[in-house]
């Protein structure tokens, strides 16, 4: 098959370009996740505080982030903020900010869920053994929330990797855009290129997310 679409992948730097395209979103995802985890832990603890003000504030934040499509948030950050304040945020930076805000909200909610899932008598028995708040948190609460949180956090990471493909809409050349460019350039010579290019993109996403899920399973087992 002379004109098999598969050959477009090996033309010029096409494959490398696809990888670079994937890296654009992977990098944003990884930075956003790495920032979201500590911020989300703090946010989750903030949400479980008894203080009604902290509850109201966190509720509003969480709902706002959840109701807004990520795309709208991206537009606000990239186009809106630039206009309104004259800050010239690059697409990269806007994306990291938006996905960190989103990740923090989601992570916070996961942390909150894990924290309130610890029965009250666990706190009581830790206290009855003379542990202070920090010790109770460090030796009793955190280890128990870990097991629950790890798989959920991993899940959030893979969601993040998938969702960051939206950055194409603020002009970034990520893997799908590169794929489209390759397909368009070869439209007439290799009509089946689309199948191959998207197939490879599928595979790349799988290869990016699969090891992460495996890691989750492994940690889950170890911490049982």
């Amino acid at each position: 098959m002379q004109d098999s679409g598969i050959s477009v992948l090996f033309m010029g730097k096409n494959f490398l370009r696809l990888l670079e395209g994937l890296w654009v979103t992977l990098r944003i995802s990884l930075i956003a996740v790495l920032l979201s985890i500590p911020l989300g832990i703090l946010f989750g603890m903030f949400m479980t505080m008894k203080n009604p003000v902290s509850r109201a504030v966190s509720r509003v934040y969480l709902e706002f982030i959840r109701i807004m499509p990520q795309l709208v948030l991206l537009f606000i950050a990239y186009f809106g903020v630039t206009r309104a304040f004259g800050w010239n945020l690059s697409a990269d930076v806007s994306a990291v900010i938006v996905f960190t805000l989103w990740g923090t909200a989601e992570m916070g909610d996961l942390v909150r869920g894990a924290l309130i899932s610890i029965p009250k008598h666990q706190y009581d028995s830790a206290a009855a053994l003379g542990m202070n708040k920090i010790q109770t948190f460090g030796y009793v609460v955190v280890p128990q929330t870990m097991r629950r949180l790890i798989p959920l956090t991993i899940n959030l990471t893979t969601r993040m990797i998938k969702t960051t493909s939206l950055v194409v809409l603020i002009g970034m050349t990520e893997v799908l855009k590169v794929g489209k460019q390759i397909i368009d350039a070869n439209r007439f010579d290799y009509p089946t290129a689309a199948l191959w290019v998207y197939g490879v993109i599928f595979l790349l996403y799988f290869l990016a997310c699969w090891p992460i899920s495996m890691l989750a399973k492994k940690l889950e087992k170890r911490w049982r």
Partner: protein
Amino acid sequence: MEERIQLQVSGLVKRFGTETVLDGIDLCIRKGEVVVVLGPSGCGKSTLLRCMNGLESPSAGTIFLDGEEVTSDGKKITQLRQKIGMVFQSYDLFPNKNIMDNITLAPVKVQKRLKSEVEQDAERLLKRVGLWEKRKAYPRELSGGQKQRVAIIRALCMNPEVMLFDEVTAALDPEMVREVLDVMLELADQGMTMVIVTHEMQFARAIADRIIFLDNGNIVEDSKPDEFFTNPKTQRAREFLQTFAYKKRRTHTD
């Protein structure tokens, strides 16, 4: 039993919202004394015990442990709680830690004792209750009775001066009650000061130096066990004891 006062409760009032659960409790417990607290469900037995180690803070009144006031002041209360162990009705072992780690966690992290030293204590106690083979097991692998015995040992390894037991056999299958109560009886024999809430009347009678009967937030009776069970002074206590006595009446009518 010595004359020294171990635990002194004066004018203890505890309210939850508008509900007054404890309404001026005065109670003085001497070193080595075993006090069993009885009373209908919801009369405030758990609340009384929880006030004694500062898990609840009194609305009024004071509690002195060994001459030191039990306050909710963070640093002081964690110090005081090391002198007062508590075992609850719910199985409260830490599910993510094995039996040995459950026992050694607080003595090592809170009291900063040597792990090897604490493990020796744990070994001695685990062997005594026949659970040494389970030291590497996780709480979910133990029966309820085994979990409660471990919970008692975990509290004992802090070397407390007083032990509080809040219905520790209430959630157990009947055939497991005995193994837990035996551990408590042995502890009483060794001279531990104990405050026990239980619904096991025969056990209460056997172990107690003193029975406290609570009703409507007050101590309505404070007597020797034989006196309380054979000849309760108040109508409320008589009614309460009746609720446990139905088995006996049935055998008579057969």
